[in-house]
């Protein structure tokens, strides 16, 4: 920290509050999340704070509870401070699956609508399986953010309720998805036709839930 400060570096201070952990439920975890956002700027003189409310049972940031913690915390921080905040993405499902893209979309919608400045991801398959992330998940995160920006908050909440309901029963059996090598032609760094079809299917579902690209 002393080095970064002495070097005039951009400082990112990260913390991932755990829903169901020591703090407890949704509101209690959001209280801790607000406190740790503020602490980043007192303790570390941070330039920005990287958030990531995560579910203790599923290891995911895309559950209903963790999205609520992220949404409320970010909106509150945006409303009452000038803090710059990011959020990181850990869906249960792996790449080349509709569920993975829908999970990432739910968080992108929540983050964009609640005033988040930086979306950081996507660590598909909970970020724990080797080579199971690709640029396609980030494309979805970006396209959904673009579609969400400026949306009415009541409409955002309706879309999110439908969207999260569509996948939240599948955490225990989330599809494992495919590795980068199976999702892309490595020589040309181009996604496979299969992944592009899955992507289009997820986009269509998002439109059915009320998102306009």
């Amino acid at each position, binding site marked *: 920290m002393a080095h970064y400060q002495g070097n005039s570096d951009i400082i990112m201070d990260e913390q991932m509050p755990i829903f169901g952990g020591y703090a407890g439920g949704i509101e209690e975890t959001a209280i801790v999340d607000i406190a740790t956002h*503020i602490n980043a*700027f007192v303790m570390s003189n941070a330039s920005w704070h990287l958030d990531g409310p995560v579910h203790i049972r599923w290891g995911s940031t895309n559950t209903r509870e963790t999205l609520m913690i992220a949404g409320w915390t970010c909106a509150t921080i945006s409303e009452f401070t000038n803090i*710059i905040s990011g959020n990181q993405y850990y869906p249960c499902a792996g790449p080349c699956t509709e569920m993975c893209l829908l999970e990432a979309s739910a968080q992108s919608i929540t983050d964009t609508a*609640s005033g988040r400045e930086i*979306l950081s991801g996507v660590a598909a398959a909970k970020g724990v399986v080797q080579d199971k*992330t690709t*640029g396609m998940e*980030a494309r979805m995160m970006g396209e959904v953010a673009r579609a969400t920006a400026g949306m009415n908050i009541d409409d955002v909440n309706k879309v999110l309720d439908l969207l999260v309901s569509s996948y939240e029963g599948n955490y225990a059996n989330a599809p494992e998805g495919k590795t980068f090598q199976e999702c892309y032609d490595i020589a040309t760094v181009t996604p496979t036709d299969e992944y592009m079809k899955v992507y289009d299917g997820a986009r269509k579902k998002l439109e059915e839930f009320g998102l306009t690209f």
Partner: protein
Amino acid sequence: MTFARSLDCFEFYERAKKGEKMTQDDWDLMTIPMKAMELKQKYNLDFKNEFVPTDKDMMENLFKAGFEMLLDCGIFCTDTSRVVKYTEAEIWDALNNVQKEFTLGTGRDAVRVQKRNVGDKRKPIVQGGPTGSPISEDMFMPVHMSYALEKEVDTIVNGVMMTVRGKPPIPKSPYEVLAAKTETRLIKTAAAMAGRPGMGI
């Protein structure tokens, strides 16, 4: 009462040596859950199943609760098993003087990170990448290139290279340093090969 000078990492270090002693169990199992529960009740917090809030009074209560949590509890330093406390004036000093914008990257690939608001019409910055996921050594560059090739992606967040020269980057070994430097060099090369050499990483 005002503070002697703005708090920094040096002052934090001093307080981490002198603050109140506490065990981590007391902190984790008593201080944090009890205070969080107390503040939820004091401020009558109920998110009513909303993902993004529409009730500004409830948001203000959440802000007060979070601020009070930090003020009353402080921060537990696991290295010294001591609690670091701040004054209210020190916390406001930090909050009133946060960086409101900064640049990531260089040249035409640079992006300006600026404060957004609830319902903002501007798209946030997209930091694409594996976000700490494990990536094999031979796939490290193409994986990161797949993000740099996406125009929706503004900056890169790295994955973790599982081996370097075939060896695991074990903490406190020289391979750890080599892996960190190799990761950075490969990601910079990946961004350059995607035609975006100035991308922030």
